[in-house]
């Protein structure tokens, strides 16, 4: 499917709008009877941007998403799994848990073949988890808040106290003095580090930066 050009926007738009409406309807139905393959595809396509961002931001604090993608579970077992993870400290709201269960049970149910694509990074960039308020002057990071945000988002790779682990040590890392490079890396990723622009608000990133400067 090609990107929609400006000229055919209206015609294509109508078609798409109807797909979206069908998608929304299917999402509403997902809790009930088993879906057809086409319905599942719609649920997956509709929910994927946000669900995959959540998986990357919340689940991969403790484990890579490959562990999620290899499961083939019915809805009740997905529910139990997501609740278990919340109980263990995954930062997932009730509403996010519901969305994840709908997505996971449509995409990774027992009828799906073993070989599926890994979570597709192309689907990841869409909806930010947090909405940015209109910019009101420069952001001031709060180090105390940054400590908690770091623990739940960054520590898995960058280690306790930012002393390094799977990812580089960030305490006293020269990148902290180059704020533009720091922001660029967090927002858009670098090498094996994924982009966090969709998972962290600008205030979150400023808070993390402020906290890292104290390390």
């Amino acid at each position: 499917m090609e990107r929609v050009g400006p000229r055919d926007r209206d015609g294509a738009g109508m078609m798409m709008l109807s797909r979206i409406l069908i998608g929304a309807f299917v999402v509403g139905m997902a809790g009930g009877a088993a879906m057809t393959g086409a319905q599942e595809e719609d649920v997956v396509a509709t929910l994927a941007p946000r669900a995959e961002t959540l998986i990357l931001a919340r689940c991969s604090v403790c484990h890579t998403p490959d562990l999620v993608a290899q499961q083939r579970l019915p809805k009740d077992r997905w529910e139990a799994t997501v609740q278990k993870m919340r109980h263990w400290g995954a930062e997932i709201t009730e509403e996010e848990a519901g969305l994840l269960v709908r997505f996971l049970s449509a995409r990774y149910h027992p009828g799906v073949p073993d070989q599926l694509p890994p979570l597709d990074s192309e689907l990841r960039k869409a909806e930010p988890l947090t909405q940015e308020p209109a910019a009101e002057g420069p952001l001031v990071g709060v180090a105390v808040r940054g400590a908690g945000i770091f623990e739940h988002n960054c520590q898995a790779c960058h280690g306790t106290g930012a002393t390094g682990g799977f990812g580089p040590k960030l305490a006293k890392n020269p990148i902290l003095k180059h704020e533009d490079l720091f922001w660029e890396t967090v927002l858009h990723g670098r090498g094996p580090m994924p982009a966090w622009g969709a998972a962290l608000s600008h205030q979150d990133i400023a808070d993390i930066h402020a906290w890292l400067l104290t390390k």
Partner: protein
Amino acid sequence: MSDSGALSRRTCFQRIAFLLGGLALWRRVQPAQAEPAGVVETGPQTVRVMRPYDAETPVREFASYLTPNHRFFVRSHFGPPEAALIAEADWRLRVGGLIEHPLELTLKDLKQFERITITAVVQCSGNGRAFHRPKVPGVQWERGAVGNAQWTGVRLRDLLAKAGVRPAAKHVQLQGADRPVVASVPLFTRSIPLEKAVHPDTILAYEMNGRPLPLLHGAPLRVITPGWMADSCIKWLTEITVQADEAKGYYMQTAYRVPVTAIQPNSGLPGTSMVPVEAMVVKSLIASPGNGDEVGRGPVTVQGVAWSGESAITTVELSFDEGRTWEQARLVGEDEPYAWRQWQFLWKPKAAGSASILCRATDSAGQVQPQTTAWNPSGFLWNGWDRVTVTVQA
């Protein structure tokens, strides 16, 4: 008014375009996935989870008696501990609980105890989980979360004797230095019954296949409970606590348990009680030829391994007709109590085309490897007949 309307409509279109683009991309990816991926196993390990690192050994490696350290399967709940926690200068093993004399030992202290070497199979309780139907949650291990290695260390009973176990003691709790990323996740705390802990073959190993224990395998010290599944073989061991009861917490009281009697799949939690996974069950694997291999019409050497928890392997049989008839393989090589037994069979294919080879083992206790394993909620102890499908050349 109209401006903001146009804006939100544009935003809406962008979203729609994005979603459709994503859908198209997802669809485009589908056909490629129809081919069986993961069949080509060229690397030293088949990775199941990147972090924490969980990886299995490609079965072709099981043509050798000992599984090399760098190919040996890796499984942990949290990955290796921070380097500082297990650096030899600071590392200590503490023995406490229901004992007369608490111990705190350096690695050097530990090596003063008698040095013991045991060859033993270590197998993940979830090895073969991917074959259970209906599917169950967890790392989808196939055939290679198992290996056979030479473990060198000291007897746990020698340490416990020095510490002086009190009469009320019934269990020995084992704790490694590995920690979850998020503090609200339960620790991987396990215990074994005192009887197993004081068994002369239960050891604390600091060497694997003659080399210092590698980090991924529990450096500097891990537990080896020969004949038992690897959920008892705690890595990065730092604390031993002798106590009256089983370890508390998720990884002993909820996880790593199986129903005492068979239950219907997904029948809700079993009415039967759940007991800890302990001894291994009789099992065999075909190491060669590999799945999907092409073989000639001349005699083909089929070989593999077979093991059981607390009994010796007595026979290994192969079937080339989906289990209707079985032919006995020849047991070869080393014969040690807790190690696996190698076997060979000279196969003369009768016809060209696709052929399936099945194998099953029987142990001295009379356990026979079943066609499939009883379903259990966490998919433990899979030991169904092993199967390899090859193409016989015309």
